[in-house]
């Protein structure tokens, strides 16, 4: 929040600094009055204890300051949720303990699905619809915008705006259960043209009837992992576009290999962490909905991880 990377978070930062400055001024004023009350001359102390001071400094000035702050803050922050209507639309749904991500067309239909990572164009605002599929979560990417609650049964809208391409971290900001602090998020801002290309690719992958993500390599582990994904029951919860795996209760894994993080923004996405996550995700993120697959052998874990890595 103190390192804004876009106009929307800039607003929040300005507001924060104004509040901090004001609080400091009031604190100093209180200190000064206390000093006067203890060590000041009789006339000063009499004046400080007078009704006039109480009326002005106890009532009129604080009420005035609060009113002005409220009015100013409200108009300032209004821009963060006011929509022009031509922003790219996305939807993020809070889940225990991960984020479902959808890219929407103008009519609000999902054109590509993903999880735990949001790709946006730099230099223009995007609008993100915030929903929850279980309890109240809160979506917060401090460098790019404000904080928005995700409330079951309600759609909240929040704009994000990155000045430059880059990778920005986010975090669930509303206590949602034991592993709440392990519910992270990654926002990747692309140059505008890059982003258009990227989204077109994702749309094609999502719409393809023929398997697009089937690796063409002769990697034995990848082929074995692909079979295991069905046999071990992973497909009951996870979807991989273009394959029989169409489970929707867990994160979409169509592009899991290209994600920067694993376990919702908390681990680097490598072969090693994939193996650790599949084999014992409960020790990494306690009480997440994916069981630890301790029954899988070492070679099976390796094969599954290789398959996950190949899904790009």
């Amino acid at each position, binding site marked *: 929040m103190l390192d804004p990377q876009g106009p929307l978070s800039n607003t929040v930062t300005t507001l924060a600094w104004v509040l901090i400055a004001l609080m400091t001024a009031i604190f100093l004023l209180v200190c000064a009055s206390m000093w006067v009350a203890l060590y000041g001359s009789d006339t000063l102390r009499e004046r400080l204890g007078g009704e006039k001071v109480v009326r002005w400094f106890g009532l009129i000035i604080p009420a005035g300051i609060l009113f002005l702050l409220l009015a100013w803050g409200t108009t300032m922050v209004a821009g963060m949720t006011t929509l022009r209507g031509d922003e790219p639309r996305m939807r993020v749904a809070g889940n225990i303990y991960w984020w479902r991500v959808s890219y929407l067309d103008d009519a609000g239909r999902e054109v590509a699905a993903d999880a735990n990572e949001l790709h946006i164009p730099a230099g223009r605002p995007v609008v993100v619809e915030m929903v929850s599929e279980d309890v109240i979560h809160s979506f917060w990417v401090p460098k790019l915008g404000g904080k928005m609650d995700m409330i079951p049964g309600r759609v909240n809208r929040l704009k994000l705006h990155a000045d430059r391409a880059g990778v920005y971290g986010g975090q669930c900001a509303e206590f949602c259960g034991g592993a709440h602090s392990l519910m992270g998020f990654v926002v990747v801002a692309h140059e505008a043209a890059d982003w258009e290309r990227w989204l077109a690719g994702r749309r094609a992958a999502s719409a393809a009837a023929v398997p697009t993500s089937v690796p063409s390599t002769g990697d034995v582990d990848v082929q074995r992992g692909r079979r295991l994904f069905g046999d071990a029951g992973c497909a009951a919860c996870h979807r991989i576009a273009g394959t029989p795996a169409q489970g929707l209760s867990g994160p979409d894994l169509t592009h899991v290999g290209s994600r920067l993080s694993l376990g919702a923004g908390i*681990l*680097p996405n*490598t072969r*090693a962490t994939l193996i*650790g996550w599949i084999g014992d995700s409960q*020790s990494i993120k306690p009480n997440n909905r994916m069981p630890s697959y*301790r029954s899988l052998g*070492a070679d099976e874990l390796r094969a599954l991880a290789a398959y996950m890595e190949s899904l790009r």
Partner: protein
Amino acid sequence: MVDDSALGWWPRWLVTACLGLVACDGPPDRAPSVGDVDLARGRQLVVEKGCAACHAFPDVRWPRGGLGPDLQAFGRQGLIAGQLPNQPGVLMQFIRNAPALVPGTAMPAIALSDQEARDVTAYLLQLKSR
């Protein structure tokens, strides 16, 4: 760490490694004699490379993965993966390419530069908690 010449460590760990693989005479030398190392960097790499997703380390609060063996007192351990002598040279090879030394392990090969591998090796060998 306990090195005197710039090239001194190289043949020493190689010899140690070879001896460790062919013979089991006497107590294994487990002093981290891997040259100039940075223990803090080793600890940082253990987190960055994702080792902690499978193993527990005494000074890494999170994650503490439960899939692989607990490494909290790894420095006192006699064997790596239950079958290789726990010596610097062997360990250095193992962390970079576990499947080559122990076929069938779930631990994947991990990309580390020479210096990074030395740092992690030294870090692992000084783990003696409990």
